[in-house]
């Protein structure tokens, strides 16, 4: 098979590519240049967009003796991922850019180009498993629960999975580093990337301020009383507790959390933890890994990258996915994906549009 290995410059994608070479495939490495103005060196342990990362990827490809190229996808990445990220925050939502990148860049732009160029598949260092099921290819959680990335791949369709290979899904992360060392890959002890690759210094609020400008407004409690100020609603996420800059403690002395973000009137509502609880989520733009479900689904649902899936029921009606949690959940942020699982298997996903607490709904 002719395999295009996406190589970020990190240890995971390097080992994934090496495993494909070992399996006897004809492998070509590609580093995706996603930033128009890459930094020279990694600042701290984040990102995959620096010149150093592209050199690390190239060095790994040279060690395994495969051709290596850099594909410039900066323009696509800006249009499909960065602009979406900024627009979502501007709308008071909390996007997941990794998921968007997998959907629009890695398993769309890159995959389609690879197929057109005569490759049979794209391989990445994601931790997830692809399993052949009765209805076609299925996406399953990785065996290493701490590294499982099926959530950020939950947007992939069966068709996309048909041409995807995740060689690391069956291996714990710790083994991958040892394997990289055995393979003489210099990236064996390179730190994992964190956070958002296009925000080099990790200061998301600062990045958004640069994009959206200052937009000061009020922090209010649930009664509407103004109890503080903020520089822009984009600095907040539902469920956030830190950095609220509230002048005085709550009457009950308990911490307060962001309950609602309203960019239109620049208002951030905070309140006690109990009010974070929601048990109903409505998601839009659903994507199914397999046939579209009919009727009520018994499943579990995960609503952030690093979180457990909670038992739920879900139903698709007129393109909108409604999910009811068995037990109330906290910190469900619009803009994030809600990914539905049947045990280990990903059923599909949607973008969270709104949430509700059953007690609060009059019906």
């Amino acid at each position, binding site marked *: 098979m002719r395999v295009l290995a996406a190589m970020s410059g990190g240890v995971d994608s390097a080992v994934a590519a090496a495993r494909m070479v070992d399996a006897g495939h004809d492998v070509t490495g590609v580093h995706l*240049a996603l930033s128009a103005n890459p930094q020279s060196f990694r600042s701290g342990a984040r990102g995959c967009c620096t010149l150093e990362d592209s050199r690390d990827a190239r060095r790994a490809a040279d060690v395994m003796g495969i051709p290596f190229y850099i594909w410039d996808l900066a323009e*696509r990445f800006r249009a499909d991922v960065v602009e979406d990220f900024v627009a979502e925050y501007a709308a008071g939502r909390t996007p997941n850019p990794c998921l968007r990148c997998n959907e629009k860049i890695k398993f769309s732009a890159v995959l389609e180009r690879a197929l057109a160029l005569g490759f049979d598949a794209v391989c990445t260092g994601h931790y997830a498993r692809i399993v052949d099921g009765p209805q076609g290819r299925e996406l399953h959680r990785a065996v290493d629960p701490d590294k499982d990335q099926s959530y950020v791949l939950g947007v992939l369709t069966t068709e996309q999975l048909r041409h995807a290979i995740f060689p690391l899904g069956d291996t714990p992360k710790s083994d991958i580093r040892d394997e990289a060392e055995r393979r003489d890959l210099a990236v064996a002890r390179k730190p994992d990337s964190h956070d958002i690759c296009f925000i080099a210094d990790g200061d998301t609020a600062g990045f958004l301020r640069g994009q959206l400008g200052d937009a000061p407004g009020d922090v209010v409690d649930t009664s509407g009383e103004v109890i503080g100020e903020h520089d822009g609603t984009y600095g907040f996420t539902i469920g956030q507790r830190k950095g609220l800059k509230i002048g005085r403690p709550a009457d009950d002395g308990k911490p307060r959390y962001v309950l609602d973000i309203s960019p239109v009137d620049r208002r951030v509502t905070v309140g006690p933890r109990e009010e974070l609880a929601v048990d109903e989520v409505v998601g839009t733009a659903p994507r199914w890994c397999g046939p579209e479900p009919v009727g009520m689904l018994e499943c579990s649902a995960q609503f952030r990258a690093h979180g457990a899936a909670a038992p739920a029921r879900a139903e698709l009606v007129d393109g909108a996915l409604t999910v009811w949690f068995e037990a109330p959940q906290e910190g469900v942020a619009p803009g994030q994906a809600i990914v539905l699982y049947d045990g280990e298997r990903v059923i599909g996903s949607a973008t969270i549009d709104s949430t509700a607490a059953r007690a609060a709904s009059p019906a």
Partner: protein
Amino acid sequence: MSERRTYLDHAATSPILPEVIEVVAEAMAILGNPSSLHAAGRQARKLVEESRETVAASLGARPSEVVFTSGGTEADNLAVKGLYWSRRAADPRRVRILASAVEHHAVMDTVQWLGDAQGADVEWLPVDRTGRLQVDALRESISRDPGSVALVTVMWANNEVGTLQPVGEIAAVAHEHGIPVHSDAVQAVGQLPVDFSSCGLDTVTVSGHKLGGPIGVGALLVRREIELTPVQHGGGQERDVRSGTLDAPSFAGFATAVEAATRDIAGHAAQLRRLRDALVDGVRAAVPEAVPNGDPAASLPGIAHFSFPGCEGDSLLLLLDAAGIHCSTGSACSVGVSRPSHVLLAMGIDEDVARGSLRFSMGRTTTRPDVDAVAEAIGPAVERARAAGLSGAALRR
């Protein structure tokens, strides 16, 4: 992966001549710093000076006009910075640098740095559709204020599309006002006659590895009356403008290569031209929409450059590489991210078309089967690359 390797990237680097390897290996065994006064030093110095004489004789220069460097980039830096600083030191009004818009990065980035960091007033002179400098623009620019021009720099032949520049005419125009002219002749030497004494230029860059010599050695030919401010200070070697222990083995290898490359230049150029014409015919037969770039009449005989509308150059490169054919997108690559070539953009070629361009460059080892391999592989590669380009366009919508 194809078994046969077709190397058509001589403009990037050329295969080293076997006699060069021999000369360098032998010279490396000789002990002695050429600047030492004892017998060992004298022996090493003999090698250096013989090499200098060989280079000078091959290029129509006097031995004292040959300044050895670590290669083309260093020679360009020395010429451009050295001329700028010495001319400005002699007269502070001289702050303008006139350069063609299609210079190699070794010149372009040096000039730009002088503009950004040293207060130079940089003017990029336009080229026509073939990449040839418009001498009228140069004349006009100089006559606006001749006393303020520090130097003019225009390459001998373009490294991407192969177009020759009217360097003699350029030198004549500049010399009317006593302005020195530098030219990067890295691609020209070995493909065309280069005679320093009659070309009219004041400094000329030559590189070893583009003509069968070692990487890491080259020379700047500097007319005797030209003063350069040194870029690299130290022991005062090389007319006091290029300090550093003299690298006798590299100079000897370089001299051997220059001598070989300039021998029977007319016959070699004719052979390259035949191969180039066959390649152009082969590519156009397979891909009628392919557009040859450059000047068919006045260009390096060994370069064929095409735009393939609807294709990404990167895709073509990947596909041809997999088919065993080594060529280049001809654009500036620092870490492999391709940007549309400044040369093609200066020629007025549209950005999308510029991205879909390839350079095939030939040299002494190129054969007819190399050309045939391209003619055979290019059709399917373009078809695939076009499909890949279109898939991108479809997604963009």
